C-alpha cells in the first residue's frame, strides 16, 4: 500500500541506499526530539536556539559531504535528506546549517589555501567557529555584479569599504566570507569578527525566519591581510558556485517544510468533526489533501533526481534553479493551503503551517528570488538573458 502518512506515496525510500536512509532517520530523530519541542517558542520570541549548535556539530551536520577535517563524507543525496529533515523542523535551523556548510565551508574548501582550510574547516565542522556569507547589499541582491562594497590593495593588505545586508548568522559568526569588488573583479575575503573597521547589526522586526539571526555587516576602512583572501576565487562565478550548493539544499528543504505541514493537517482533518463527520470524509477536503500529496510527491522525485545528477557530477546549475523554484513554491503553497485548512487554529504558532508559511517567504526570496530562477531557466531555453 502506498505510504500516504510519512508521506512516501511513490516508495521513494526504495530508491535510497541504506546509508541515505540511516542518515535521514538519524537527523529526523534529532529534529523530533530536540527541534520540534522548542521551535514554536523560538519563532514567537525571535530567538535563534544557539543551544542546539553543539549537538548539531556533534551529530556531524556541518560540512557533511567533506571527506576530511572530521566530516562524514556523505554523498549529495544524504546531504539533501539532512536539509529536508532540518527544514521539517524549521527553515531557520536549515538556513543556519546551509550557510555553515554550503556557503562558508564549501568556499573555504574550494577556493581557500591549505592554511585557510586547516585553520577553519575542522573548527567549523565542530561549530567552534560559525560562519556567514556576505554577498547581498542594500541596493539589490538580485544583481550582485553591481555590488558597491570595494577592496583596494594598500601595501600588502586590502582595505574594505561598504556594507552587506540580510546576512544569515552575521552577528554570531566568527568569520564572514565576504564578496567585494576589486580592480580585478569580484574577490572573496575571510573577515574575522572583532577586527578594526568591521561591525555588525541585527535586523529586527522580521516576520519570517524569526528563529534565525539576520544581520547587516559594515566595513569602514577595514584592513584584511592578503592571507585572508580566498586565493582561488576569481570573479562572480565563485560566489555563484556557492549559491548552487545552498540552492541544492533548499530544494530538499522545501519538501521538508511541506511534509511537516501535511502531517499536521492530515491529523487535524481526521480529528475535526463538522456537519456530523470528520473532515477527511468530505469530498472537497479529499481533493485538497490529494493535491497536497501530489505536489509533495513531485517535489520529492525532483529533489532525488537532482541529487543523483549531482552525485554523478553532471548536475547543471539551471537544473538546481528549477528545483529551488519548484520546491520552495510547492512548500509555500502547501503551507498556505494547510494554514487555511486548520481554520482559526491555523493562525496560531502552535500549529506549524503558519510558521513554515512565513519562513518560506524568506526562502522564496533568498538564494535567488523565484523570478530570478525562472529567468535562469528561460535563458537556458532561449539562449537570451532577459534579466
Amino acid at each position, binding site marked *: 500500500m502506498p505510504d500516504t502518512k510519512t508521506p*512516501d506515496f511513490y516508495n521513494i525510500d526504495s530508491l535510497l541506499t541504506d546509508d541515505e536512509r540511516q542518515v535521514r532517520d538519524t537527523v529526523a530523530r*534529532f529534529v523530533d526530539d530536540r527541534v520540534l519541542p522548542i521551535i514554536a517558542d523560538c519563532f514567537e520570541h525571535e530567538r535563534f536556539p544557539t543551544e542546539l549548535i553543539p549537538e548539531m556539530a556533534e551529530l556531524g551536520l556541518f560540512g557533511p559531504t567533506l571527506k576530511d577535517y572530521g566530516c562524514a563524507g556523505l554523498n549529495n543525496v544524504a546531504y539533501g535528506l539532512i536539509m529536508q529533515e532540518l527544514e521539517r523542523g524549521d527553515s531557520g535551523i536549515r538556513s543556519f546549517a546551509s550557510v555553515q556548510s554550503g556557503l562558508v565551508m564549501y568556499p573555504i574548501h574550494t577556493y581557500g589555501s591549505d592554511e585557510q582550510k586547516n585553520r577553519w574547516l575542522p573548527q567549523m565542522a565542530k561549530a567552534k567557529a560559525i560562519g556567514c556569507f556576505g554577498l547581498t547589499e542594500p541596493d539589490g541582491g538580485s544583481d550582485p555584479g553591481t555590488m558597491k562594497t570595494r577592496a583596494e590593495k594598500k601595501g600588502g593588505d586590502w582595505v574594505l569599504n561598504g556594507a552587506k545586508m540580510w546576512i544569515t548568522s552575521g552577528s554570531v559568526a566568527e568569520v564572514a566570507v565576504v564578496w567585494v569588488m576589486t580592480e580585478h573583479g569580484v574577490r572573496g575575503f575571510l573577515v574575522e569578527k572583532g577586527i578594526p573597521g568591521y561591525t555588525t547589526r541585527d535586523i529586527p522586526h522580521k516576520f519570517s525566519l524569526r528563529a534565525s539571526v539576520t544581520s547587516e555587516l559594515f566595513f569602514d576602512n577595514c584592513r584584511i591581510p592578503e592571507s585572508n583572501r580566498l586565493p582561488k576565487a576569481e570573479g562572480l562565478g565563485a560566489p555563484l558556485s556557492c549559491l548552487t550548493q545552498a540552492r541544492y539544499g533548499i530544494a530538499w528543504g522545501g519538501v521538508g517544510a511541506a511534509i511537516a505541514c501535511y502531517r499536521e493537517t492530515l491529523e487535524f482533518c481526521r480529528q475535526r468533526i463538522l456537519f456530523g463527520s470528520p473532515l477527511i470524509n468530505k469530498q472537497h477536503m479529499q481533493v485538497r489533501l490529494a493535491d497536497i500529496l501530489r505536489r509533495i510527491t513531485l517535489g520529492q522525485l525532483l529533489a532525488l533526481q537532482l541529487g543523483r545528477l549531482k552525485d554523478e557530477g553532471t548536475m547543471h546549475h539551471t537544473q538546481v534553479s528549477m528545483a529551488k523554484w519548484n520546491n520552495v513554491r510547492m512548500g509555500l503553497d502547501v503551507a498556505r493551503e494547510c494554514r487555511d485548512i486548520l481554520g482559526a487554529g491555523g493562525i496560531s504558532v502552535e500549529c506549524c503551517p503558519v510558521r513554515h508559511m512565513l519562513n518560506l517567504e524568506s526562502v522564496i526570496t533568498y538564494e535567488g528570488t523565484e523570478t530570478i530562477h525562472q529567468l535562469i531557466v528561460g535563458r537556458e531555453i532561449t539562449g537570451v538573458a532577459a534579466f
Partner: protein
Amino acid sequence: MNGVSLQLRILAIIKQVPDSNAAIKVLPGGSGIDFTGLKLVPDPFDEYGIELAVQLKEKRSDVTEIVALTFGSEKAAETLRVALAMGADVGVHISDPKLESKDEIFAAQVIAAAIKKDAAGFDLILCGKYNIDLDAGAVGPALAEFLDLPHVGAVTSLEIATDGKHFTARRRIEGAEEVVECGLPALLTIEKGLVEPRYPSLPNLMKAKKKPVTMLTSAELPGLEASNEGVRFESIAPPPPRPDCKFIDGEPPQMAKELVRLLQQEAKVL
C-alpha cells in the same frame, strides 16, 4: 566467563522493533503484523544498554571490548549499525528465517547459544528491561538462566567496583529503592533514565560500516529450532476500537441529570 584478568568485556543486546509512533497493521487472520513499510528502530530500552556500555568504556580503562548483538531479520543490520556508530566495537548478527519466533524464551536460547560460541566470554551482559514490541521482558532473565548468571532487573543506577569484580546496582520497586550487590559476570536489564542514549553521529555512522560483524545462522547454532518454543503464538488482534464519544447538550443542571441517567441506564455503572 572472563574471571581471571582485570578486564571487562561487555555484551549489549539490541533488538530492532517497530517505531512507537508507527501505526501497526495486523495481517488478515491475525497471523502477525504487517511489516511492509513499517518504520523500524533500535529498541529504546536496549539503547540504554548500548549507551551504558559505551560510557563505561569511556570512563574505565579496563573495558576491553563492547560487542553488540542483534537477533532478527536481515534488516536488523541497520539497528546493529546504530549500536556500532554509538560506540560498540564489533557486532554479532543472528538472522535466519528458520529461527523466527515470537517466543522470548526461545530468543534467549538462541542468544545464549551464540554467546557460548564466543571463546573470550563476557563479564557484563546488558539489555533493556523489556522490548517495546512484545512487552514481555523475558529475554534478560531467561538468558541469565541459560547462561547460569546472576540477573539484576530494571537497573536505575550502576557502580562497578574499581577491581571490576563486583558492582552495586539500584532498582526502583514499589514505593522504595532496592540496592543490590553482586559479583561479575552478571546480566543486567536496564530501566529508562539510567543513561541518555547519544545520537550516532553521521561520521560514526559511516565508520560503523567498516566495523566487523559476525553473521550467525542456524547452521552455526545447531540444535535450535523454533519448535523448541515454550510459548506458542496463536494470533494477534488490533485493540478494540474506542467506543463513540457522546456529547450531552443543554444547561448544566439538565446535562448533569442526563449524565446520571446515561450512567445508570446505558453504561450501567451506577
